């Protein structure tokens, strides 16, 4: 069979794109709040106001004339990340791990020179990666030194945790591990591995790459089942706080774990994708319905997390 029966998908509670757009994003995410998450610079400022940990901001460039002197915004950091403030789907993110003698080294080992960097910044400002093609801002931030416990789980890229927070309740989580195929990027459709994470323990459930189940990381052959996310309770708390901060009912929080600083909010997403269901081998609607039933009962963040932890445990 080439296609699944739509009724069996419904029975499994799988959330479809149209349903997501109309009944979740359209219903629970107010348009006026979009800039809070669509603009990464705004998200960063907002998070700092709320005392939520984010990767350190080095600086930002708004105008083409500043492009030539970009070095002063990196503040002598040898490693840094340049990203468009309004980019989506991980587009336009440039990670530099080391710089010496005017050469900049990407995680893949590829060397760039100053003109490459300038071109990249200039592209960002012209709006090449922004949602509507509008002028954008290039944001510089410190590179996250990811926790040693992820050694072997990721290839040339920072692994991150994506948690879908539905009406303030953490409901689904996955870890996104970059591969050689994904070119160091953590996007599933580009070939990153998605590992479903048990909401109650932070331990790996099942893993997929290109929508197919996998057991081992394709580059490092590390068994994915052994993956366990550290600081799990802190992560749940952090992403639940994002709900209070943005007031978005359907939110994807991307969290990275820094060796020194612990969990940091990398970015927020008002339109989190559906692949997380495949990684968890679970339809999102089943959990969303459970949350709808108790919505309003729990007053504090901790109460909501406790509900999620006691109800969304994997049986296995």
């Amino acid at each position, binding site marked *: 069979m080439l296609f699944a029966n739509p009724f069996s998908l419904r029975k499994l509670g799988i959330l479809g794109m149209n349903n997501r757009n109309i009944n979740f994003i359209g219903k629970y995410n107010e348009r006026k709040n979009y800039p809070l998450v669509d603009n990464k610079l705004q998200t960063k400022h907002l998070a700092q106001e709320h005392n939520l940990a984010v990767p350190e901001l080095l600086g930002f460039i708004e105008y083409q004339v500043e492009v030539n002197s970009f070095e002063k915004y990196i503040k002598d950091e040898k490693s840094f990340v340049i990203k468009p403030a309004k980019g989506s789907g991980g587009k336009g993110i440039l990670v530099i791990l080391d710089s010496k003698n005017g050469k900049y080294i990407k995680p893949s080992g590829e060397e760039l020179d100053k003109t490459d960097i300038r071109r990249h910044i200039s592209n960002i400002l012209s709006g090449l990666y922004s949602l509507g093609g509008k002028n954008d801002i290039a944001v510089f931030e410190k590179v996250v030194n990811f926790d040693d416990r992820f050694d072997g789980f990721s290839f040339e890229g920072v692994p991150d945790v994506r948690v879908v927070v539905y009406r303030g309740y953490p409901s689904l989580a996955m870890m996104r591990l970059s591969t050689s195929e994904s070119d160091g990027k953590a996007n599933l459709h580009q070939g990153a591995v998605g590992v479903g994470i048990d909401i109650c323990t932070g331990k790996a459930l099942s893993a997929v790459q290109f929508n197919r189940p996998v057991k081992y990381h394709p580059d490092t052959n590390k068994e994915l089942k052994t993956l366990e996310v550290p600081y799990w309770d802190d992560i749940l708390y952090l992403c639940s706080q994002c709900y209070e901060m943005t007031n978005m009912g359907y939110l994807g929080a991307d969290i990275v774990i820094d060796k020194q600083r612990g969990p940091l909010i990398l970015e927020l997403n008002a339109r989190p994708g559906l692949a997380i269901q*495949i990684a968890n081998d679970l339809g999102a609607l089943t959990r969303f319905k459970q949350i709808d039933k108790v919505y309003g009962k729990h007053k504090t963040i901790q109460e909501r997390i406790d509900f999620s932890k006691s109800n969304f445990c994997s049986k296995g």
Partner: protein
Amino acid sequence: MQSIYKILIFSFLLIVAAFSLMWYKIVYLGFPLLQDKTENIWNIQAKITFNSKYKQSGVVSLTLPSKQNGFLIINEESSSPNYGYSVQNVNDVRKGVWSKRELQRGSQVLYYSIDIIKDRYSKVDPQKEFEQIIYQEDVSTPIMVAGKSILNSIYEKSANATTFTSLLIDEFNQKDPSQSTKLIRNNFMKNDIQKRDTLLKMVDYMGYKVRTVGALYLEDRKRNVDLVPMLEVFDKGKWQLFDINKGRISNNSHIFIWQRGSQFLLEAEGVSNSNVKFSITKNIVPARNAALVKDVKNQSALLDFSLFILPNETQNTFKFLLLIPLGALVVVFMRVFVGIKTSGTFMPILLSMAFIETELLPGIVMFIVVVTMGLVVRSYLSYLNLLLVARISSVLIVVLAIMAFVAIMSEKLNLEYATSITFFPIIILSWTIERMSIIWEEDGAKEVFQQGTGSLIVSVLAYFAMTNQTLSFITFNFPEVLLAVLGLTILLGRYSGYRLSELYRFKTMVKE
């Protein structure tokens, strides 16, 4: 939940509105739903001939037809160089009057012609009173004596004016009539006019309301015919029409009545040998034109606000523009139901519009050629470190150059079609090339191929929707269909079920 019902009702209303407007136009305004229907426009020409005396002044007047049931007079003209012409109303009868102060010697010709079209919605209230002068004095006694016995026997057999007149006409059309009938026929019915007038007197004698009619049978290519003398008898609140040789006419949709009552058809002063003859021609026109002409005549409010009042050139533009919503509907459908990835939301529509100009196959080939060459050029440009806008502009110039080159090559090779490549929306193409090359860098060639193919598939489908003859005929003639398209689009916009692509994507999650 409530908003879903609102939307359902709203789109349902839009669709119903669209279809009832269409229905109204088809049923009451006679618009054809399909393209090939034709209708007839009848042209009737009256040719007036007369001889004139030198340097005399002359006035010729012809009784003109007026509004009548089942027909619409759509055009009326007289060609009469050097004559003064006016239309006058005399006792509710229209007359065309030609006049001249100094006539030329010899025979003269005047023409009057009208175009009529059958229109079952054209209705005229029957006038009960109508002036009909009946001269009784020449009905001499012996004839009326003979006539009386006939009239009495028919009167007994009949029930009303209609049956009486029918039986009377039958009586005088018998092959082997009685003595008295034969007598009257031989003496008072030497020609059709006489026959009609005698019949008229007889019907009138019995106290029925009756009048004379001059009519024309609508048959193509009739030349130099006279008006057919007929009778009308008032019965059951209607005037019933009788052909004096054929009897009662129940279906008069092929008969055009030129004249009613006893006034002269042609009156002339200062001229001699005046005569009028008629000829009839049938013109076949597309039904829509006919419907339009009718509605302009009937002054339908709907048409007063329609696209047809626009100048021709603008109409042609709209013919094209009105197809875009169909293309958009295809795009929405492919996105929402199927889930095909395209590069840019409305890129496929613009592409299919280009395909309409270039024709499909050459268009597809050209698109692939231009985009591939554009991508190659773009990858070279990326070494030059240009600012984005400058780079896209460079791609644009290169795309133009590629088009020019292909056009010249195809001209040399005698491939006519490739010259129409100029219709490609080059700015959109340049942006597409730029975006595709970025996708290539970031997501790899596979994604580029996917989006490119998706765009092509959707644009080809949109092309078929937009070039469908029937659809394009309907959208132009019934622009209200757009309301239905809008309704459908709104409905699609609320479709929250799975996409076809998702049935594939989530396939592995369904366990046997």
